[in-house]
């Protein structure tokens, strides 16, 4: 398409610029000590800036990508310091060699704290990280047999010649920074990284697409702690003397947060940029400020924070990036109605049934069974002792008036809410006590009534994010290229959205977002898909296409449970319809029966329903075999004629 041809070169050139922008400062950092080997004071300041950069980049993994802000992150630096100090005192191990052990010590503490507080969502994490910082300082002060208490510990004198001064520290921190950046970059490229951003954007939705949020957050927190711990050992060596108040200072944590906020939280390079700005500002305040700079520093940080919040709420890098995009706008894409309506076909990835079909008590034909589920909101009983069963391979419709508890039932089945009573079985396994992601790993996928995409992520990242299973291999698979990304592109082109792959999902229109959400669900290789109003807000022609897609997938073995108010659509699509009213099923049967059921007419359709036969969904050809029928391509001439 001509639009693509126009956009492609712009993108490529901009990518080239980006590599250049990164390469120049990095080579400058490497070359600096070679060119100016005797700038001793400058080397010290640069080493401290690199140290802050390491901390900010590692902070960014949990607090930038996953959005869980740690306000006491220097606790891990302190733990690294003390591990190196204790090891070198007891065993004579060089602090540089003790650095990995410092990282491990930090990970152990992070794991202990994280496994408690990261089970839940919300602000508890922020409080706990601050508490952790203070608690560790108290321990370091009072465990005198290990840490020598408030008297502090001395570290060995550096073994190298005086001529080198701070150079080895500079090199050490630069190396650790490179490794940390490499790790951070790798995280961004895997499904693990996509999952972390998903947690930041919408944790409930992330869980629904199979992201084990507890595990993800803990891993991110541990990784984040590790690199700070490693750097801490080098820091202790550089200082030569450590004590509890110095090693576990809250101001050091504030600097880490400030660095990441200034540079751009959640970006790869932002924390590095911010760290240099903050460290140089800090040094200037110390050097030129009165009173040893102590008060001056706090003032500078405070003013900097206010300025960032006011003028750079997203940080420097994102602000520059959006300014760049504004200067270099890309062409807007519109739904190619003709292409979107053309018939496509996709091979569904199927998983084997997890339960044996020999079980005769429930019969192998029932895939989903809800028994006596009840959910109350205060005095309101949204789902009232409801029973529902969905046959394997069927497309079951769930209709009912607004407020009859359909969406709540979906939430109970997928794990977004926990039922007050009742049981839910999927493929002969009881799932009502499982976390949402485990239900997803069993092959349960859903879409939402009001779409819940990760609006800041690209469309492609949105579709790559879901995880069909709990294996590490899946989690660490690349989200950028390889079979996962290929599959996502395949699904997007099936739904006519491949041109939008690199657009932020939030920029898509409502109906397009519905389709992206369907692609997300398909990425989970589901056996049962719960669709919450798939046709709502979708263009009528696309509704017909949606029906085709559902039928195509259904023929390949995916079972559907569909909530929808477009009755002709439901009656045409489904082979079994359940009518909900006041939190329970009041009628069920084939579409023909439902159409004429008096109770349904009364509760839902209204008596004048029969007078308005809408043929909206009947435009969908019923294909009886596997070869999809081709609806004639709509007149493309009309689309072209308007330009």
């Amino acid at each position, binding site marked *: 398409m001509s639009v693509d041809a126009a956009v492609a070169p712009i993108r490529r050139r901009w990518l080239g610029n980006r590599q250049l922008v990164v390469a120049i400062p990095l080579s400058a950092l490497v070359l600096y000590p070679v060119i100016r080997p005797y700038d001793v004071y400058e080397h010290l300041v640069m080493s401290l800036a690199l140290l802050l950069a390491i901390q900010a980049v590692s902070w960014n993994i949990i607090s930038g990508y996953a959005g869980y802000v740690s306000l006491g992150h220097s606790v891990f630096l302190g733990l690294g310091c003390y591990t190196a100090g204790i090891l070198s005192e007891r065993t004579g191990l060089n602090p540089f060699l003790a650095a990995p052990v410092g990282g491990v010590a930090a990970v152990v503490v992070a794991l202990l704290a994280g496994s408690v507080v990261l089970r839940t969502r919300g602000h508890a994490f922020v409080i706990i990280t601050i508490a952790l910082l203070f608690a560790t300082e108290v321990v370091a002060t009072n465990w005198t047999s290990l840490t020598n208490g408030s008297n502090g510990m001395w570290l060995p004198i550096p073994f190298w010649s005086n001529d080198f001064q701070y150079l080895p520290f500079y090199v050490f921190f630069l190396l650790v920074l490179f490794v940390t950046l490499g790790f951070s970059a790798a995280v961004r490229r895997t499904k693990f990284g996509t999952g972390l951003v998903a947690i930041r954007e919408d944790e409930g939705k992330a869980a629904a697409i199979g992201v084990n949020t507890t595990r993800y957050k803990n891993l991110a927190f541990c990784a984040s702690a590790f690199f700070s711990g490693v750097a801490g050992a080098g820091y202790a060596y550089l200082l030569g003397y450590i004590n509890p108040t110095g090693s576990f200072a809250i101001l050091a944590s504030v600097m880490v947060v400030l660095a990441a906020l200034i540079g751009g939280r959640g970006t790869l390079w932002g924390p590095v940029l911010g760290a240099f700005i903050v460290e140089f500002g800090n040094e200037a305040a110390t050097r030129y400020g009165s009173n040893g700079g102590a008060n001056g520093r706090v003032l500078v940080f405070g003013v900097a924070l206010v300025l960032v919040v006011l003028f750079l709420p997203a940080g420097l890098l994102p602000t520059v990036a959006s300014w760049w995009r*504004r200067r270099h*706008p890309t062409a807007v894409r519109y739904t190619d109605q003709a292409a979107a309506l053309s018939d496509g076909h996709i091979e569904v990835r199927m998983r084997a049934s997890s339960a044996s079909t020999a079980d005769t008590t429930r019969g192998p034909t029932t895939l989903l069974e809800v028994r006596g589920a009840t959910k109350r909101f205060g005095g309101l009983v949204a789902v009232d002792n409801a029973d529902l069963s969905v046959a394997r391979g069927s497309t079951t419709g769930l209709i009912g008036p*607004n407020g009859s508890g359909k969406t709540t039932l979906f939430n109970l089945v997928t794990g977004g809410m926990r039922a007050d009573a009742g049981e839910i079985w999927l493929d002969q396994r009881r799932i009502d006590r499982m976390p949402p992601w485990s239900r997803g790993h069993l092959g349960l996928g859903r879409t939402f009534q009001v779409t819940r995409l990760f609006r800041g992520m690209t469309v492609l990242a949105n579709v790559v994010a879901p995880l069909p299973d709990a294996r590490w291999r899946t989690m660490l698979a690349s989200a950028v290229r390889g079979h996962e990304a290929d599959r996502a592109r395949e699904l997007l082109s099936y739904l006519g959205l491949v041109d939008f792959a690199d657009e932020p999902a939030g920029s898509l229109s409502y*109906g397009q977002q519905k389709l992206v959400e369907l692609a997300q669900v398909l990425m989970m290789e589901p056996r049962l898909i719960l669709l919450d109003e798939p046709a709502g807000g979708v263009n*009528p022609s696309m509704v017909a296409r949606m029906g085709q897609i559902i039928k195509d997938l259904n023929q390949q073995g995916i079972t559907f449970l569909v909530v929808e108010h477009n009755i002709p659509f439901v009656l045409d699509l489904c082979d079994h319809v359940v009518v909900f009213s006041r939190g329970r099923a009041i009628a069920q049967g084939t579409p023909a029966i439902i159409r004429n059921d008096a109770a349904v007419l009364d509760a839902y359709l209204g008596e004048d329903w029969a007078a308005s036969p809408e043929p909206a969904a009947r435009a969908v050809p019923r294909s009886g075999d596997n070869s999809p029928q081709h609806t004639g391509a709509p007149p493309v001439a009309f689309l072209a004629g308007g330009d």
Partner: protein
Amino acid sequence: MLTLTGVVAGYGGGGNVLQGVDLSCPAGSITCVVGPNGAGKSTVLRVISGLLRPRGGAVTFDGHPIGGIAPDAVLRLGVAHVPQSHALFPSMTVRENVLMGGFLVRRDRALLRRRYQAVADLVPLIGQRQGDRAGNLSGGQRRMVEIGRCLMLGPRLIMLDEPSLGLDPQGLRAVAGLIRQLNQDGTTVLLVEQNVRFGLGIASRGVVMDSGVVRLDGPAEEIMRHPEIATLYLGGTASKPAAAG
């Protein structure tokens, strides 16, 4: 009453979503905008209500140029906007939510009370559930409350972005009735609808948008009958089923 001439607009760093939109709503009419997903229909409403500053073109309401002025100023002129996504405050009660709709006239308690009573009469659900938290309402019920809320300022033009979204058949009829009622009471209505049959069914004028421009406008009846339009955007609902085979 409302006129858009050559309006060009886009989001953030993106290109122009609207590429010269010409549109008008005569006083007392119900105008329904239809078109494929992503054609820029909702963007038109955002430009009118001041949520998005147009990059070019003119928007006039009752002779006042309103292109690019602040949303609250547009509200004061009597233009109310009910956006597509659910926008109730979930932890407030239904009554509080509706009263928030009268935020601009909050000083005049008597007026506020009178308007609330009128709205509750018009939308019975609001009266029935006024003490419930909005978060406990179902999707369709929230829709009704949102529409009720936008009436608190006594608007002369209301813009509804997909009022049918998530409504059951009876709810749909209730909303259709509500819109007709408001229109009869003198309010001009601008709809964006994907449920074309519903939208054009209650509208007096239809507008077809595609790729950021208005393709066609005219009496709703005519739009429904237009053969190409029907095939491409209306799912063949109006005239005949989409050409098959």
